[in-house]
């Protein structure tokens, strides 16, 4: 009944002259819809928006007993602490290098994988490879690092390969030079299949008639890939590239924390783990929040910059 009578109410002349009353009437009409959103809205306010306000502690000398609203303001003092701190600078450099390496190797890998998978003619084999490649994504980071440590142990697989090439036993987790390859490599292991899903979806979206037409024109497999498949994929590639560039600085610090050892800190000290150490372990909340905020600001500039560049050169953009 309510659904049917609603349009009549809205169109009556008395409402047009009283917009507030019309608003109230809609409010009452949609009370169920509005009520349904309230629990989730409360959650989002508490756990997403309140922390955004809480970032103010970066400009305070935060004190647990006085809270965000009564702690003394100190302006940019906490940021000076950050900029004058060599360990923080090292963390920033490492964060950037790790992000760039992950992008350089981790970004093309799923594209190549999706293209190769797409060429497979046996449907069953293809499905099998796909299912197996998604699996590592569901393995927890604790298990993954645990397995990695075992493979990198003196009697593990990696050293087995090293010995085979005549190289002496390597202490992978104690060597700062090996932290980055291990991090990036295990990242690819975990996300290769999962990240290829979007590309595979884009590949199935390419019009088959284009291939048929190309075949008539005498184009071989390679030419078809070059002139039909890649252009068909490029919008997806561009969007995901912008997103990845924007998240270069969002290191998976949980994994870094698990892979850290006192002897590889030179490369494994990243902003994320430093914030954890300063903020959670040492309870210096304001300093840690300032470091986190400084990184977020740089990350935000990166997203804007990547989007601007993409818009300018390729006419693809997020907004």
């Amino acid at each position: 009944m309510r659904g049917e009578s609603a349009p009549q109410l809205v169109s009556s002349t008395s409402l047009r002259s009283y917009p507030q009353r019309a608003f109230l009437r809609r409010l009452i009409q949609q009370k169920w819809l509005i009520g349904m959103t309230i629990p989730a809205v409360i959650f989002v306010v508490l756990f997403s928006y309140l922390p955004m306000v809480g970032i103010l502690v970066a400009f305070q000398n935060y004190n647990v007993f006085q809270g965000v609203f009564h702690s003394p303001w100190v302006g940019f003092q906490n940021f000076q602490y950050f900029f004058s701190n060599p360990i923080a600078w090292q963390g920033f450099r490492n964060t950037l290098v790790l992000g760039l390496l992950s992008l350089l190797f981790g970004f093309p890998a799923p594209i190549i994988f999706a293209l190769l998978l797409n060429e497979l003619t046996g449907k069953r084999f293809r499905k099998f490879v796909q299912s197996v490649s998604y699996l590592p994504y569901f393995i927890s980071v604790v298990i993954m690092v645990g397995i990695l440590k075992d493979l990198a142990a003196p009697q593990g697989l990696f050293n087995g390969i090293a010995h085979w090439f005549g190289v002496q036993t390597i202490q992978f987790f104690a060597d700062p030079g090996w932290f980055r390859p291990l991090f990036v490599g295990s990242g690819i292991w975990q996300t290769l299949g999962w990240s290829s899903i979007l590309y595979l979806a884009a590949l199935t979206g390419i019009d088959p008639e284009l291939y048929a037409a190309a075949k008539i024109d005498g184009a071989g497999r390679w030419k078809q890939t070059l002139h039909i498949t890649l252009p068909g994929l490029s919008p997806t590639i561009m969007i995901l590239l912008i997103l990845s560039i924007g998240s270069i600085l969002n290191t998976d610090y949980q994994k870094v924390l698990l892979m850290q050892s006192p002897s590889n800190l030179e490369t494994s000290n990243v902003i994320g783990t430093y914030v954890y150490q300063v903020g959670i372990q040492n309870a210096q909340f304001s300093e840690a929040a300032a470091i986190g905020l400084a990184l977020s600001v740089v990350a935000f500039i990166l997203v804007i910059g990547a989007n601007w560049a993409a818009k300018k050169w390729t006419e693809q953009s997020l907004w």
Partner: protein
Amino acid sequence: MGSSGMGYRIFMFFNILIMVFVVVIMLYPLLHVLALSLSSNEPILLGQVSFFPRGLQWFGYKTILTDPQFWLAYRNTIMYVAIGVPINLLLTSLISYPLAMKEFMFRKSLTVFLVITLFFNGGLIPTFLVVKSLGLLNTPWAIVLPTAVSAFNVVVYRTFFQNIPIELRESAFVDGANDLVILFRIYLPLSMPLLATFGLFAIVGIWNDWFDPLIYLNNTNLQPIALYLQQVVDQGNVNLLSGALTGSDFLTKNPVMLEMAAIVLTMLPVLFVYPFVQRFFTKGLLIGAVKS
């Protein structure tokens, strides 16, 4: 013509070879862990274990399965899943339904309100301080509540609900039902694939969650299985080991056995639900939503 040439056949040969290689790389670490957990000390130390266990032993499993802390952690994780997943599904369904309705007056503003959280967040420290000031530290709620509503999930649910014929809702109105009843009687029963997928994702998420318990729970009686596992893997769990090993045992036992047994026991439930999860996401449920 071009597709049956020599060059193409060579390419296909190498392509299949590469794919087999990928499959081996993806599966090897998991099979290796299983093999190690069942192998005896000497083959482990000599690095002879690869795909298959050598010199079968059950010491790792026996030790872990008789550790009361293991069972406590397992029970805690199951409890967090049992509390967290229903909250997650319920709240997400509740807010997604109005957002799927064209006439809803706050549709635009609420969408913006949610999408903002995809791009901005307070970061680790402010979130920690909020959880702390709400008095949630050292309670199961610290694990369950902060991640209960995700804007990404809401977008997927909303898209799914929009594809349910609106006539069903309209005829239910005629029968005198309100939107809450319509959601539970009509929409949710029609959304079982959606709820199953996101339910399984939520289970795996809580199951694998290690960092939140690390910072929010100091009480070992509350620690979940992921945190227990991290301690076994990281420190070789000295207490557990010294309790289980006596005298000459050091010649035949190895902490690796404990670590690998703990990994297998933690991984098992996730591997068990995996086929169900992956059946759904290959159907393109998620992809359609991501595109929009």
